[in-house]
């Protein structure tokens, strides 16, 4: 018996893994969120828990991962819904992926530049000659920083960009760089909660760009508009409800996010509060065309877009009115 013990333990562990993968009911949809489970995704957890999706006969599976990977799945109609930033929508459409934003979640672009107070960086112009850390020369962080710098008449020769992965907090604290490009609702909150005094420059204060939104594809819009309408409705109600009662939303988040331990809860609640400040809680999209045009202009300036595309096709308010 003793010699079979390791084998029995292995089998037990494997059965444990299988147990959590029970099949789910019909009319399932998959919603692809980037990153990892996080309080910033509270509207989706709230919409599930409050039954907003269920009211439309939908059962939602949440996926977490890389935004660029997911957008390929949505563009090829292998999956139907994801959260993506505006620049990803335009870049994908330029590559022939027919993705469309159907719900504007963020009214402000959620990127900024943080620095320790002692560095004295209080305006974009102060970035001249500085070492700036960012996850990489891609994605919302890169676009957000370039937009901010260009509005301050700076170009790549005026500062040094360092790809540091997602280690902005550590790099800044260890003074490996002078400033870091951050997600406004996350890293500044993490830094302040650890007692660091910081300055934050917001891209949204310099230029209005398209932030995160619910994205699907043209085929789904054409063939299953009711589904799109249902998902938009459920997500929007989740957004409004989370903003109305952040405390209750946080309690719901605890069900979906592992390791939200007590010593982190105050910080995580602040992350949620800061996120809510960035969300679009009304349905006023009167300036939205300009936001898309600004985004396209930045992408053309940087050279990520080679030629202009029709930004009107990149989004629709048909389901969001």
């Amino acid at each position: 018996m003793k010699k079979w013990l390791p084998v029995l333990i292995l089998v037990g562990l494997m059965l444990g893994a299988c147990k959590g993968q029970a099949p789910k009911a019909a009319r399932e949809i998959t919603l692809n969120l980037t990153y990892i489970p996080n309080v910033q995704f509270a509207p989706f957890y709230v919409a599930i828990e409050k039954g907003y999706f269920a009211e439309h006969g939908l059962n939602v599976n949440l996926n977490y991962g890389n935004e660029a990977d997911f957008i390929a799945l949505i563009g090829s109609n292998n999956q139907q819904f994801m959260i993506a930033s505006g620049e990803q929508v335009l870049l994908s459409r330029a590559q022939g992926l027919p993705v469309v934003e159907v719900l504007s979640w963020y009214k402000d672009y959620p990127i900024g530049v943080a620095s320790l107070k002692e560095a004295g960086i209080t305006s974009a112009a102060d970035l001249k000659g500085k070492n700036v850390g960012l996850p990489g020369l891609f994605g919302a962080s890169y676009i957000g920083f370039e937009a901010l710098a260009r509005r301050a008449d700076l170009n790549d020769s005026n500062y040094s960009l360092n790809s540091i992965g997602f280690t902005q907090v550590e790099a800044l604290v260890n003074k490996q760089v002078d400033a870091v490009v951050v997600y406004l609702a996350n890293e500044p909150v993490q830094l302040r909660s650890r007692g660091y005094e910081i300055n934050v420059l917001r891209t949204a204060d310099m230029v209005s760009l398209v932030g995160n939104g619910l994205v699907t594809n043209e085929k789904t819009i054409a063939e299953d508009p009711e589904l799109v309408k249902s998902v938009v409705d459920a997500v929007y109600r989740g957004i409004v409800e989370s903003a109305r009662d952040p405390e209750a939303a946080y309690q719901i988040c605890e069900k979906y996010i592992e390791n939200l331990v007590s010593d982190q809860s105050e910080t995580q609640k602040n992350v949620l509060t800061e996120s809510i400040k960035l969300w679009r809680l009304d349905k006023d999209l009167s300036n939205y065309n300009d936001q898309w045009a600004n985004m396209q202009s930045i992408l053309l300036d940087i050279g990520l877009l080679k030629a202009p595309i029709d930004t009107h096709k990149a989004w629709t308010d048909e389901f969001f009115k």
Partner: protein
Amino acid sequence: MNKKATSIKFWQKLAANQPLLTVLAVILALIAWQVLVWLTRLPAFILPTPAQVLAKFAETFQNGMLWRHLSATLLEIVLGLLIGTLLAVTVGYALSKSPLAEKLLTPFLVGSQAVPIVAIAPLLVIWFGPGLFSKVLICVLVVFFPVLVNTLVGMREVPQSLRELMRSLKATPGQTLRHLEYPAALPVLLGGLRVGATLSVIGAIVGELVGSDRGLGFMISLGRGQYDTALVFVAVLTLILLASVLYGLILGLESRLLAWQTWRRN
């Protein structure tokens, strides 16, 4: 002189006691780690102390988090290792029987090893979805090559004189495989399996880091995202432990399956 002899004897005795040496090495590493934290004064979200990691280990063990993610990773590893080994041994055997096929396929097989798994893992997740299948596939891919190469080498090392003996005894291909090729190639093949087992752990983690909601790789992402570096350490240390256990199991399998060699030597 007596004192010196006693001292030498002590060190010799210590060097011969492997379990004691292992425990000592771990204690020394923990002390060095703690000293490093004291000296650098780095905050816990950059470098936690051993005590903080131990506390996190106990917490995740008690609330079931560690078990849940460990079992998910283990499932991927075991499936990847089994399927990868089975495929590699089958293909390796077929190639050893057909020099033409070996010459045709070798450039592709060698070329495929030049592709870093981290580069193609996102593509595999896109093509096959973020579920169990893509993770197992990544494991299969990393396990396949070392086992295949060792199968080929093992088959080639079968002495020609013994093959001729089997032929003279009019042995069927099945009998030759069972009584000659399998036992002769087994030591080398098991060596490949040992490498494959360690690599499969890396494969599973790469898949989970690309996109997943369970597994030790996911635990690492979660810890990073929440600035809970102690959680990252717990996941990494568990991985080390898991890889060591797998390696040990294969060593055990090896000593069991190759007991006849020891018996023959004796």
